[in-house]
């Protein structure tokens, strides 16, 4: 790999390292053997690109984390409470998570829409649903990442009862809730991004669709965070969340293609 001189306007014929004409795959089909990647590889490639861009720009996760912590502070003043437990704790937590997630949802497809990323992907000989899976997984990663900041912050700032015993149950509920948010969020983000009022329509569409997740998540979390008699994880709400995730996962996967094509 030779290093060219790299002057700002690059190529003078001298440092144009182009091989002699005619040698460089001169138009004959099959000169390059290209094997179109399968679903798993495609999702992997897309996901890797997503995370790479996010690491470079740090657009989503830091913002979501900061927003969550600030919201906890706001809640302290708005509720005029120094500690919350039970229903109130579950509510504060889920509302904060929801609105922070919306921030991530809004940014999800913006880079693609603005930089012609959709075209680049649509020209590739791959299954288009892979984009849905990859974006959903990326959003899931962002959600988990910012919750790594938000949950400890919550325990520190507002939560009354100690978190220790409730943690496994809480993580289970969060996992299912995050999955639902990721599925709905990706679908809504794709729907909203190529419209004129994308920042407004995203939240407006997402919030009603996410109400069942808030219901399930809140009801499941509340007994875990009760002050004196912490309860067990209510199975019915776990089931509700899982069912919701499954149904909308399938629907979103099936419909996503229609949002991409023209």
């Amino acid at each position, binding site marked *: 790999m030779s290093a060219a001189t790299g002057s700002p306007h*690059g*190529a003078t014929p001298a440092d144009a390292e182009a091989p002699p004409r005619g040698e460089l*795959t*001169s*138009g004959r089909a099959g000169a390059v053997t290209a094997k*179109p990647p399968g679903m798993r590889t495609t999702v992997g490639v897309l996901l890797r690109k997503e995370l790479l861009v996010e690491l470079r*720009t740090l657009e989503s996760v830091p913002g979501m984390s900061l927003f969550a912590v600030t919201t906890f502070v706001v809640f302290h003043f708005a509720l005029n409470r120094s500690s919350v437990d039970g229903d109130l704790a579950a509510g504060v937590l889920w509302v904060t998570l929801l609105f922070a997630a919306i921030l991530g949802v809004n940014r999800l497809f913006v880079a693609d829409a603005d930089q012609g990323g959709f*075209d680049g992907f649509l*020209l590739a*000989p791959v299954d288009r649903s892979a984009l849905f899976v990859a974006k959903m997984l990326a959003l899931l990663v962002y959600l988990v990442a910012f919750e790594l900041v938000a949950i400890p912050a919550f325990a520190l700032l507002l939560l009354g009862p100690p978190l220790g015993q409730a943690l496994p149950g809480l993580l289970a509920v969060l996992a299912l809730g995050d999955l639902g948010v990721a599925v709905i969020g990706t679908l809504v983000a794709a729907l909203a991004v190529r419209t004129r009022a994308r920042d407004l329509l995203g939240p407006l569409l997402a919030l009603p669709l996410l109400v069942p997740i808030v219901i399930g998540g809140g009801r499941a979390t509340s007994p875990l965070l009760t002050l004196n008699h912490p309860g067990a994880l209510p199975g019915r709400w776990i089931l509700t969340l899982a069912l919701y995730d499954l149904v909308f996962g399938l629907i979103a996967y099936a419909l996503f293609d229609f949002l991409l094509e023209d």
Partner: protein
Amino acid sequence: MAALQLEGLARHYGERAALSDVSLSLDVGKTLVVFGPNGAGKTTLLRILATLLRPHAGNVSVLGKSLPEEGWAVRGRIGLLGHEPLLYRELTARENLRFHARLHGVGEERVQELLQAVAMTGRMNEPLRTLSRGMVQRVAVARATLHDPQLLLLDEPRANLDPAAIELIDPLVGAASERTRVISSHDPTGGLAEADVVLGLRAGRPALLRAACDVDPTEIAELYR
């Protein structure tokens, strides 16, 4: 063998006809140049051939496959170079090309090959947003030819490139590449020089369709009147 076969191709945008009644045939290895004022439908035509837009009426056959049903079968064999580079600004040239290579199932060595061909190896590890427009366009050319497409669709490919760069990319996308090409152009003389077949569009309808040797530059200028 016909690389392209269009019969009565039409596409509308709401109540307006973006393209109507476009019929033509293009043999392998030949170059079709499309002329026409802005809004005439040149970009629409190219995007339909690239399988990015569905035809609304008519028969379209690209590289032997009929669109839109068999679009998935030809996608890997078409290269599109348009106004947008279709690259991510935050990633480097190398990362961008690697990304596209993997999506097309093409190996790493090909990425290196093309970076050399467009003389971008020196700055291949810098984010695209730090590069000049001309350099980004060169990387875009690399992207479009990475998978060695049989059909090249070029929407005013020489925009943003200096003469040296134009010479550089000629083996990839120019006449010397020996690929079947469809080029949209605003340059009557230059465009005519490299055409085998000429299509002139006006308001979505074909106003001129002939072998290039039978066409006079003044006729092309007529389209813009």
